[in-house]
Every structure is written in structure tokens, then in C-alpha cells.
């Protein structure tokens, strides 16, 4: 049997009120690979992510993850299958502290229900402690353990971006979707984040699909690059191949 890709997206089309946000998008992500999606504003990058984790439902097409069809599944279900995501504009739980945010990443790996939770003594407590240990390790790994019980909404932007990465790690995904992980960061924060993502890849066996505007960053980190424009894939390949692709250059510099 031919080796199956981790994620395979085929002929996926998404429409908003008759306008296509994605048009016949095809691509695959292999296990352990880092694929970057680039493209001008409005090219459909975030829409693509929203299709992958079930926030939007494509009009047609198929998205197979480890052979399972994702189209039509609810986001929570897709998360349980092992796809984690970070958001372009951050989607942390602002009133909760770092550990609680990370713990929420482990929600689907835990079992405590209302009854066990209400009793606390016994299983709920054991599970809580075991998972908190894991989250504490992640927090230490990302240098986040210093923020104690401060609600994360009060922390600086760069830190919040890192917490979101941590929450995604806590989910122990096989595929990690990163939506603009370095957008709005200064140079130093950017370098830290680059190093962290590379470290995460080295330590954990997961594929990463990332969207980013910062072409420098993408070229430094990606195995392969996929370029979207007007909802269509205009090029795929290694960074050095893609950057000289005439359609890509035109898309970025403008046709004018």
C-alpha cells in the first residue's frame, strides 16, 4: 500500500455569499513536515485554516487527516483527532492564568466529569495533578513559569503568542496549525519564536502547517512552501524554487 500523507486536502472550495475564498485547493502534508502557506492579504490563508479545523465548512472538496474525513466534523471533534491551532489575533482565555490555559489544551486528554469534579478527592485530584505536572514542564520549556497566577490577558503580546504555542503543544497534536506566529512581534520576540518552533519540532514528532506574512521567517524555517493568491494555489515547492516563481513574484509585488 502506498504511504498515506498525514493530511491531504483535495479540490476544496469555500464560498462566502457567492465569492470564493478558496478555489479547488489541493495539497498534502507529510508526517513531521513543516509546510508554510504564504500569499498576499486576502489570499485565503486563514480561511484555509478555518476549513481544516471545522470552523468553516467548505462547499465541496475533501480533507483527510490520517485517513479520516474532516469536512462536516465539529471543531471540538477535530481537535480530539489531534489537530491543534494557534490564532492570528490570539485566542487565549484572558482571565485565566498560564497553567489553566495550558490545561485547557489538555482538556480532550482528560476525563474528569461533573460528578468526579464535584467530589474532587480521588480521580479528579489525581488527574489534575498529573496534567498540571505536564503543563508545568511545557511552561518551563517555553519560559512561561514565571508568570504565576497573573491572568494571561494582562501579559505582553509576545508572551501571549508563546502561551498559545504552549497550549497547542499541551494538546499533543500530530498536526499543528500556526496562524501568523510572529505577526506583530519585534525582532527579538521574532527570533525567540523562531528558535522555539524549531525546538518544538526537534523534540516532538509533529507536522506543522503555518501561515505567515514574514517571508524571511518562512524561508528560514519551512521545508516546503505553498503560495495562495485569490484562493488558488499558485505554487508549491521548496523555498528557493518558490521565490523565483514568476507568478509568486507578481502576486507579491503587484501586477501594476
Amino acid at each position, binding site marked *: 500500500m502506498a504511504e498515506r500523507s498525514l493530511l491531504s486536502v483535495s479540490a476544496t472550495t469555500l464560498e462566502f455569499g457567492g465569492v470564493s475564498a478558496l478555489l479547488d485547493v489541493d495539497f498534502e502534508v507529510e508526517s513531521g513536515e513543516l509546510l508554510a502557506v504564504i500569499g498576499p492579504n486576502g489570499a485565503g490563508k*486563514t480561511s484555509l485554516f*478555518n476549513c481544516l479545523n471545522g*470552523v468553516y465548512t467548505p462547499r465541496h472538496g475533501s480533507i483527510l487527516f490520517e485517513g479520516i474525513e474532516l469536512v462536516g466534523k465539529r471543531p471540538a471533534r477535530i481537535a480530539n483527532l489531534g489537530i491543534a491551532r494557534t*490564532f492570528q489575533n490570539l*485566542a487565549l482565555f484572558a482571565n485565566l492564568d498560564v497553567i489553566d490555559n495550558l490545561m485547557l489544551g489538555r482538556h480532550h486528554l482528560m476525563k474528569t466529569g461533573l460528578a468526579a469534579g464535584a467530589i474532587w478527592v480521588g480521580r479528579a485530584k489525581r488527574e489534575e495533578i498529573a496534567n498540571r505536572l505536564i503543563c508545568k514542564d511545557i511552561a518551563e520549556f517555553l519560559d512561561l513559569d514565571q508568570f504565576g497566577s497573573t491572568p494571561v490577558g494582562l501579559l505582553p503580546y509576545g508572551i501571549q503568542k508563546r502561551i498559545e504555542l504552549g497550549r497547542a503543544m499541551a494538546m499533543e497534536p500530530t498536526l499543528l496549525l500556526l496562524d501568523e506566529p510572529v505577526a506583530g512581534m519585534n525582532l527579538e520576540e521574532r527570533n525567540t519564536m523562531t528558535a522555539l518552533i524549531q525546538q518544538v519540532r526537534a523534540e516532538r514528532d509533529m507536522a506543522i502547517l503555518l501561515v505567515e506574512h514574514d517571508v524571511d521567517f518562512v524561508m528560514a524555517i519551512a521545508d516546503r512552501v505553498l503560495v495562495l493568491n485569490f484562493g488558488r494555489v499558485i505554487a508549491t515547492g521548496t523555498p528557493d524554487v518558490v521565490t523565483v516563481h514568476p507568478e509568486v513574484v507578481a502576486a507579491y509585488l503587484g501586477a501594476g
Partner: protein
Amino acid sequence: MEKFFQLFVAAIALGGIYALIALGFVVVYKATGTFNFAQGGFVLLGAYLVYQFGDDWSLPFFVALILAMVVMAGVAAGIERVVIRPMINGPPFTIVLITLGVLLIIEQAVRTLWSEPAYVLTTPWGNGVTEVAGVSIRHVDMWTVGFATLVLGGFFAIFRFTTIGIAMRATAFDQEAAAAQGIKVGRSFSISWAIAGAVAVVAGAMLTSRTGSVLTPGLSFIALRAFPAMIIGGLDSPGGAVAGGVVIGVVEVMALGYLDFDWIGSGFEVVLAYVLMIIVLLWRPNGLFGTRAVQRV
């Protein structure tokens, strides 16, 4: 058949009143996103003001009505400015809770300022009845239909054809983009609340003269029955508010007129409006004419 026509006129009249209450509510919701529970309080206070100016100060009824509308418009705009505006960017349900507090305060203020248990509101139509082709029609119902048509028509004319109306609709659609065109967003808010206050007065006066001309603090509770109207119509659709109001009015009057089985018990007509609302919501979560909320990540 005669019974039906008789009920029908009463139903349309009650529907008109509910439409007015719902309209005041929807205007505020559309312009400012505020779910204003105090609207029931406006209806209550408005009716008492008409009594105060008309019966107590002996002004002619229509002068009293217009004066009360002006005063209520000011009160409503003032409430918006003082307790709502500062919270407009706060957590979503804060403002709803504030309007609940305002409702509580208005209700008790009315009980305090007018301490008799009930008042009689004198109206030009009184308890008059006219016989038309064997159907007796109460004057109050005709006046109510007339008033409701006039006020609703006036509102829609302003809303659609004047610069103020365009500014209000633009603000309702996109506050920031409206501000970027030079529209004074705060003024649109004030005007919306003022309109809500003014139409509440008409609704309050008509409701009072309808219920055998007795004015009690229970009026704000009757106004709560208009909630299903605006929900059925869709919270952000003034046209829907009118449609929903008429539907609820018809359902309530017809149920009262025709459903007299023992097992139904008392007060079913009120519950029916809410049951109808629940059914509509399960079918269309944004009401019949409401716009669907777009969810963004």
C-alpha cells in the same frame, strides 16, 4: 363571524400597541446593541406622565400626550447618556443588567411618585362604542390603530428618508465606519433612545385606556408581553417588530376569545405568546426578520 370581526379589530389594536413597544425596543437594539429591559419601565412611566399632565394638571389630552412624549424622550436619552454610554465597550451583558436595574428603579419610582393604587386616565374616546354592520367596535381600538399607524408611519419615514435616519441606520450597521464619514455616533444613540422613550408613551397611554382606563404599576408587566413580539420579528428589524407585534396581539386576543376549555386554565394567552416565541426561535434562532450574527474567530 361577528365575534370574529369584533375580536379582529381588538386584536389589531393590541397588536399595534405591542408593535409600538417592540419598535422602541428594536430601535435601541439596532442603534446601540443594547437589549433594553427598561423599555417596559418607559411604557409605565410614560402612561403616568400622561395622567399627570392630562388629569392632574388638566391639560388637554393631546397636549398632555405630546408633552409626555417630549419628557420621556428626554428621560430615555438622559438614561442612555448617564448609565449606558459609559459602559458601551464593557463586557456584553453588563448593559443588559444595567437596564434591568433601571427597570427596577423606574418601577419603584412610579409606585412612589404616584402612591394611589390605581388612577383613571381620561381620554377623548372614553368607553365609546360604535356599531358597524352589526359589529360593535370600541373607539379606543380605532384610535389605537390610528395612532399606531401614524407613529409607525412617521418613524419609518424618518428612518428611511431623512439625513438623521440615514445616519442612524449607518451607525446601526457599522459604528466605526459611520464615525469615519463624520456621523456623530453619540447623537445617533441619543436619538434612538429618545425615539424609544417617545413611542413608549403612546403605547402606555393606549394600553391604559384599553384596560378599562385604570392605570396601575402592573402596566410594565403587560409591556413585558411585547418581548415575544420583538423576538419573533427579529431583534434588529424594525419592520419585523411591527409584524411580530401584530402576530402576538392577534394570538393573544384570539386565544382569549376562542380557547375556553377548562384544562387550559387562566393566563394561557400570555404564555401562548412565549410558547410561540420559543417555537419560532427553535426554527429560526434570529427571529423571522433578524440578521444572522456573523461569528468571527
